[in-house]
């Protein structure tokens, strides 16, 4: 009886680990020769402890200034890496501004200070979640974006990028990446990262979807980032 259970368990583990996850594990263990990985910053720091008072105080919280990233880029050329590096720097600069905090805290939909698909959180709580930066998969509040980014090319599709909930990796289509300026790449990275933190949006376009957390805040990064290009 138990032998059957063990067999079933083994099969379920096989199903849950798809090919991409295996590649990821190989990358992390440096067993794969054909993937060049680059880490932008070092290991996460100690957990962040933010209160709502810190968020709404007159002074910008320290975590806005120290917001960081632990991004691993898979198979990027030096020029692609350069664009990603600029995008990441731009994200940090924007998050470290009062303009960004104010835009998140005062974001409104239909005259109410709220986001669409906000998961029951207030604007201040959403801002707090961003600064804490605890991804669903690895919920450590380390004040840093933790993600893997892999470029792929599909010219016949209209997909800019995608990710799945069960992985820390996001996939970015070079069809769009190659023509995007760094602020648009930053907007896309932040949008995808907000999914990792747990925010979703409607699958198809609608005017209200623009007010969801990933779209609205991703767009803020893109717009405010223009001045850092």
């Amino acid at each position, binding site marked *: 009886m138990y032998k059957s259970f063990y067999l079933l368990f083994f099969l*379920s583990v096989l*199903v849950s680990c798809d090919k991409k996850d295996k590649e990821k594990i190989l990358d992390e263990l440096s067993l794969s020769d054909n993937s060049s990985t680059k880490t932008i910053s070092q290991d996460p720091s100690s957990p962040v402890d933010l209160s709502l008072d810190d968020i709404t105080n007159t002074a910008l919280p320290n975590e806005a200034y120290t917001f960081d990233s632990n991004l691993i880029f898979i198979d990027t050329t030096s020029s692609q890496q350069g664009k990603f590096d600029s995008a990441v720097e731009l994200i940090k600069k924007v998050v470290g501004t009062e303009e960004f905090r104010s835009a998140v805290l005062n974001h409104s939909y239909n005259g109410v200070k709220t986001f669409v698909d906000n998961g029951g959180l207030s604007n201040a709580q959403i801002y707090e979640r961003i600064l804490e930066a605890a991804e669903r998969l690895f919920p450590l509040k380390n004040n840093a974006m933790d993600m893997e980014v892999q470029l792929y090319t599909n010219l016949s599709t*209209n*997909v800019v990028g995608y990710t799945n*909930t069960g992985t820390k990796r996001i996939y970015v289509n070079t069809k769009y990446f190659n023509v995007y300026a760094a602020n648009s790449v930053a907007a896309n990275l932040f949008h995808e990262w907000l999914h990792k933190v747990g925010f979703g949006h409607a699958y*198809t*376009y*609608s005017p209200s979807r623009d007010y969801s957390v990933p779209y609205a805040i991703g767009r803020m990064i893109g717009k405010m980032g223009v001045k850092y290009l």
Partner: protein
Amino acid sequence: MKNLFLLFLLSCFTVAFAQVSHVEFDENLERECYAEALKLECIDNKESVIDECLEKKKNSFSSNCRNFHDERKSRKTH
């Protein structure tokens, strides 16, 4: 003990099959095709594009939007 083991197995299957995919499409194209769907009255009162309507009025859409809707539908059903 046996029940605990079954519970563990169940949670493994849940993790294996409950993955949600987030796909970001070209926003400009999305807007363009939403506007077309609006004109052809293929949007319901919850601002959702109605797939059956798109299928029925397929020939009235531009080729760009036809392709887009096909791709969107195929990504959704995968």
